[in-house]
Structure formats: C-alpha cells, structure tokens
C-alpha cells in the first residue's frame, strides 16, 4: 500500500492506543490491573462532577462589614484601657456605627490626642472640640479589614474541612468577598454546613451577680420568651452589661428551656487564646470539651480566676451561654472544661471549630447545591443509555443512507468518541451530566462533516468523474465548509466555557473538544480508509 496511507494509519492507531491508556483508570477494568501499572501509566482518569458523584457545592458570602464593626468595638475597649492607664481617663466613651465618641476633661486633650496618634494609627479624627473627639476608622483600614476577613475566613474554613475529613475538597476565593466550597461525596451535608458556617466566637464573660437586676431575672423561660425578656430588661441594666441565654434540655422530657444571665459585656478572655481543644468523657458518661490556653491566655485566666473568686464565669459561644460555673479558686495551668448537653458528635464538632479558630466575620450561604449519591449514579446510567441509543440511531441511519461509505462515517464516530474520552481523561477534566449530553451531541455532529463530503462525492460521480478523482474532489471542496461549520460551533462553546459555571462548563468542554477532534477524524480519519481501498485495486464503482 502507499506509504502515506501506512503512516496515517499508524498515527491513528497510536492516538487510539494513547486514548485507551488515558481512559483506563475510569473503567472497572482498572481495578484488576497489577499495581505497577499505576506507577508507569496515568492513574487518574476523568473526574466526575458533583452532579454525577454526589456532593455539595456551597458559595459563602463573608459579612466583612461585621468584622469592621468588631474591630471598632475592640479598639474602643482598648482605648478606654489605655486612657485609664495613662491617668487621663475618658469621661464617656461609646461607639456609634464606625465612630468612637470620646469625651474627656479639656486639659487632657493634648495628651489624649498624642496617645491616639501613637498607639492607634488605624483611627483618624473626624471631628474634635475642646472636651470631645469623634474618631473613626481610616478608609485604608476598612479596606484592609474587608480584604483580610475573606482570606482569613477561607483559611479557617479550610482548617475546619481538613479536620472534618472529605476527600479532595475544593475551597477557593471567588470575587471580593465570596468563598466557594465543594465537597465531593460528602456523607452528611447538613453537618458540614453547620461546621463551616459557625462563627464559633468563644468568649469568657463574668456573670454580674452583684447587680440587683440579676436577681429579678427569671431562672427559666420558654424559648420563645427570649425577645420579651430582652425588651423588658434592656433599659434597666447598666451599659456595661448584657443579657445572654443558656439553652437547657431536660434529660427525661427533652423539653427545651432557656435561662437568662446578666453578664459583663466585655469579655474577660476570648477563644483566640486557646492552643488546644479535645473531647473527653466526664463523670456521668457525658462528653465535654477540654480546652487548653496558650501561655498568654493561661496567665490571664489565672488573673481572672484569682480576682473573681466565688463569682461565676460564663462560657459563651456565638453569644450563647454554654455553662457558667462558679470560680472556686485561682486556676493556674490554663485548663478549663466546656460542658453542655452535648452528644459525642456535637462535642467533636465543637472541638474542631475551636481548634481551627473563629471566623473573623459571619458568613451567609448564598448558594447551596447538594446532590445525593444515588441520583448521581442514576444520572450516569441514564446518560450512558441515551448515548448508546443515540449512537445506534445515527450509525443505522448512515449505513442505510450511504451504504459502505456510511460504515466509514460510522468509523469516524467511533474514533471520535474514543479520542474524546481519552482527551478528557488526559486532562483530568470534570464530567457532568450536561457534559455527557455534549458528548452525545458531538456524536450527532461528528457525521455531519462526512455527510458534506459524501454529498460532494456523489455530485462529482454524477458529473461523470472517475472514482478516485471524485473522492479527492469531494474532500477538497468540502474542506472549507467543514472548517466554517466547526468554527461557528466552537465560538459559542468557547463563550459558554467562559461564562458557565460547573455543569455548563462541563458541557462546553466536551463540546469544544468533540468539535476539534472531529476536524481531525472526519478529514484525516476517513480519507485514509478510502485511500486504502482505492490504492489496493482499481475501483469502478463506489458504494456511497
């Protein structure tokens, strides 16, 4: 046979062989291969999308504004302390939105200004009079906090998910303040959401039992009375204090009640001073979380417990009181226990979030797509079935209409599919259900090029040209039209790829690849067969 033909056939066979090697890991056959195979040849095939594998896709929005508010609050508390230390105390200091309103004795103004400039460079003076000042956070600071709160939240969430144990999670920043989380094959989506979304701000606040109002508070209320209690007592309590609630569950009746506590607003200690949190089992087989403070925290803890003996210290998580044990004596060594009505799983999850740290700002879930594994398998099955039937229909039509040439076109089809899945596997591309639809679509489009070529050949034959010339003319003249039609489909596929998310991107990928591969198979792949047949013997008539 002609040399050119042999070269082309070898090339095509090589590409087919390579495709099979790449695609092997995605087939059931792979598990039966010897272990050394994975070391020499590619071991990762096609990635299944979430809609085929099952799993969870979340988009979280970080409420950076809250982080800004928190920073202003913390700065206010710090300023109050600094001023007291310098013996130039503020007569009143309060926060309004992002502003801190300060009033003081006029003679201290210079000293106070100097202190603020030196120690609090993130604030700038908005207004000032002889005895008062309005400070606000610098714009550059606000920007920095907003940006860093998203990155920080990302790291914290990554930390939590690492401990949760999901294979190959995807966690990345999206836009200015959004985080994308994908958990393929996650078994307990609800638990994962709670783990990810909890702010987990741990604070230790002293209970203000000395205040007479504290005695007026009821010791137990129904959960829905919470708002009413707050409204009733808000005006009566000093500005330093706040009312927080503890949630109690009666062991026998499972009835939920709440218990109000009057606590100091400013936290004595916070969770960022923790160095470890572990789950243990207590006296009555109840799980609790044992926390360990770092050296700074331990020292502070010692000081607080020393100064507040016989007072209660409320352990507050996300503004909910978990417990409020009485401080019997000074506690050195920096260890404490958090107990509440936990199940072992709840205790575990709490330990995870305490170890990973609190989120710098609350996050809200703005998109949540969860697919169960059974639906995923169902989709794969349906996709494959449609694919097989679609292929069969096209194959039969081509054979029926174009006879032998139709079979040649069917060869294109098969070649196309093999190379396409091989290419997908080589790129470790993600296959989604629309992606499968894209593959089936390319099956339908694959033979179109052949139809164009065959019709051309028929025209040439009708005009009386000999077979070999007719075939060549057919391929030549149809060439540009085929290129045109492929380019136009590629344009839209490309746009879909750029703008699409998840499943649609999967469709764009399979469509684009399919079209590009088709250019190769329909022009080169099938021509080889004709050249092979024609070069062997003189063909008088063509079955087309």
């Amino acid at each position: 046979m002609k040399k050119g033909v042999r070269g082309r056939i070898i090339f095509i066979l090589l590409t087919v062989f390579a495709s099979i090697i790449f695609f092997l890991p995605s087939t059931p056959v792979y598990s039966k291969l010897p272990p050394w195979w994975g070391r020499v040849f590619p071991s990762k095939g096609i990635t299944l999308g979430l809609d085929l594998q099952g799993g969870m896709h979340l988009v979280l929005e970080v409420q950076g504004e809250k982080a800004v508010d928190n920073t202003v609050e913390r700065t206010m508390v710090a300023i109050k302390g600094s001023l007291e230390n310098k013996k130039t105390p503020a007569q009143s200091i309060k926060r309004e939105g992002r502003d801190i309103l300060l009033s003081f004795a006029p003679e201290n103004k210079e000293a106070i200004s100097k202190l603020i400039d030196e120690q609090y460079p993130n604030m700038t003076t908005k207004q000032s009079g002889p005895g008062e000042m309005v400070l606000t956070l610098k714009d550059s600071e606000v920007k920095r906090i907003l940006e860093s709160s998203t990155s920080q939240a990302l790291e914290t969430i990554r930390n939590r998910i690492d401990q949760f144990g999901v294979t190959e999670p995807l966690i990345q920043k999206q836009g200015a303040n959004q985080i994308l989380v994908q958990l393929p094959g996650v078994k307990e989506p609800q638990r994962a959401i709670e783990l990810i979304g909890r702010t987990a701000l741990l604070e230790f606040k002293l209970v203000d039992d000395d205040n007479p109002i504290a005695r007026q508070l009821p010791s137990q209320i129904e959960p829905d009375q919470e708002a009413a209690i707050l409204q009733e007592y808000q005006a009566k309590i000093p500005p330093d204090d706040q009312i927080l609630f503890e949630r109690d569950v009666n062991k026998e009746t499972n009835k939920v009640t709440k218990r109000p506590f009057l606590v100091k607003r400013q936290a004595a200690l916070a969770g960022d001073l923790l160095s470890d949190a572990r789950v243990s089992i207590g006296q009555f087989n109840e799980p609790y979380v044992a926390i360990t403070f770092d050296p700074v925290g331990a020292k502070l803890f010692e000081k607080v417990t020393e100064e507040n003996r016989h007072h209660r210290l409320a352990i507050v998580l996300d503004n909910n009181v978990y417990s409020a044990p009485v401080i019997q004596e000074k506690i050195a060594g920096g260890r404490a226990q958090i107990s509440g009505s936990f199940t072992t799983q709840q205790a575990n999850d709490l330990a995870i979030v305490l170890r990973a740290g609190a989120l710098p700002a609350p996050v809200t879930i703005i998109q949540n797509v969860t697919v169960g594994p059974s639906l995923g398998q169902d989709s794969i099955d349906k996709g494959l079935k449609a694919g097989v039937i679609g292929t069969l229909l096209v194959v039969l039509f081509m054979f029926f209409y174009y006879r032998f040439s139709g079979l040649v076109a069917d060869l294109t089809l098969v070649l196309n599919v093999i190379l396409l899945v091989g290419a997908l596997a080589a790129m470790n591309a993600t296959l989604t259900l629309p992606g499968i639809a894209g593959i089936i679509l390319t099956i339908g489009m694959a033979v179109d090029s052949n139809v164009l070529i065959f019709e051309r050949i028929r025209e040439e034959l009708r005009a009386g040209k000999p077979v070999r010339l007719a075939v060549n003319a057919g391929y030549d003249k149809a060439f540009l039209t085929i290129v045109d039609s492929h380019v136009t489909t590629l344009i839209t596929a490309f746009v879909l790829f750029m703008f699409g998310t998840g499943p649609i991107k999967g469709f764009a990928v399979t469509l684009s690849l399919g079209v590009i591969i088709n250019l190769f198979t329909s022009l080169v792949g099938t021509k080889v067969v004709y050249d092979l047949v024609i070069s062997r013997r003189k063909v008088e008539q063509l079955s087309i």
Partner: protein
Amino acid sequence: MFEIFGKTQIDFVGKRYIFFALSTLLVSLGLFSLVQISRGKANLGIDFAGGAAVQLKFNQPIHIDAARKALDENGLKNAELQQVVQDNRLLIRVKKQDIVEQNVRDKIQQAFAKSFPDNQFVVESSTEIGPTVGQKLQKDALVAVMLSMLCIVAYIAFRFEFRFGIAATIATFHDVFAVLGIFFVLNKEINLLVVTALLTLAGYSLTDTVVVFDRIRENLKGRRKESLEQVINDSINQVLSRTFNTSVTVFLAVLAIFFFGGEVIHDFALAMIMGVIVGTYSSWFVASPLLLLWRKRVGVLKRA
C-alpha cells in the same frame, strides 16, 4: 445511491413572503417573551430567579395534591410541584419571594415527615440560590448571548461578504428567538441549561446556513447571466439533501437524550430538538431569500 430528495425544483424564493410572515410571527413571539422575562413574568428557573429546588424520592407512591396540601400547611405556599410517577419522585420548587427564611430544605423535610409518617423518603438533591446570585447569573447569560452573536457576525463577515454576514446573523437571531418564544408559550421553565441550548443551537444552525451560502457563492462565480433569484433557488435545491441529513443526524442524537436522558437534561434536549427543526427551516426558507433584500439597492452580489 439512495436519495430522499432527488433533483428538486422547489421555488423557495418565489414563496418567500409567506415564510417571512411566519418567521416574523415567531420572532415577535420571542421578543415578547424576552420582554416578559425582564419583567419577571416568565417561568424563570431558580438559577435566575433565586429560590430553592428540592428533589425527593419516596418509598411509596405519593399523591401530588396531598403533597401540595402538606406544604401549604407548613408555611410553604406557592410551591411548584412536579412529579415523576413511576419513580415516586417529587420535585419541589419555591421561588425566592416565597421564602421567608433560609433552610427551605429542612422545612420541606419536616412537612413531609409530619404529614406522611409512614412514607419514608430520601432527599436526592437540593439547590438553594440566593437572589443576588440569581441576578448575577441572569446578567452573565445575557452577556454570553450578546458576545456569541458578535463573534458569529464577525466571523461570517470575514469569511463571506458583509451582506451574507447580515443575512446569516438575522437567521441565527431568528432561530434563537423562535425557540425562546415557543418555550415561553409552552410555559417551560427557562434556566441555565435552556440558555446553554439556545447558544449551542445558535452556533449549530449557522453551519446549515453556511452550507447553503457556500453553494450560492460558488454558483455566483460561474453563472453571471442568470438572475439572482434563479441562482439562489438552484443553490438551495442542490444542497437540500446534505442540509437535511446533517440535521437528521443531530436530531436523532438529541432525540435519544430527550427520551432516555432523564429529567435533568430533558428540557435541554427539547430546546435542541426545536432548534434543529427551526434551524433547518431558516436555512432553507429565510436566510438565503434574505440576500435578495440587498440586491435592489446595490446591484449584483459579488463573491467574497
């Protein structure tokens, strides 16, 4: 050689005004539906409108009216329900304005657990999309459509003469709007997959049109003596077989998806089926006759 169309002599050009009328009707339908979409009055999927969609699979058959009642009683009014009877599957959609708080999925689960305690179910999939995300997707979809159209016009204008480009673009817009209009009339949900189908069929219907234009251009090269109408008519008749067959192969493939591919890509397949039919129709009856509209002003169309 087996042929469906032999040597035909159909007068496509002569009857063009009938087809223009039909096409104008279809396009107006599409434009109307576009207006309704922007007013929020069309059946927009939660991809665009925001909201929640939950798919449940029950162990035993469940009656759709009883399900609706159960949801009503539990604070989920105005939920759209769709049923796949043979699988005992229920698809529930709640639009964003009807959601008071998040966690629609939990509410739905509680509602069914309470009302049908003996009928166990599993949540197969759930999708919750906040309203801002929906708007962003809408905007993205619109930009994507505009961008593709622009690129297509540019490419065709580059490969053919400018007037060919305009005619091809009009035909493509016609196809997209016609399918959109039909979907709107059938009150089918318009979601991201449907937009994907529209974009795909835009790119694909162009290939049919290009085949006809190629032939017209080729014929114009040789046959200067004959009238433009004659050339166009002959060209279309000559390529009848191939445009028909290329459409048939895609049609068969998409038909398989429509019947066997499952609910998720069902509407996508429907849009593609309509797109193939409309696309072939527009290549024969709309795109080429449109070329005649320029002849009166400029003289004979030359090859690119």
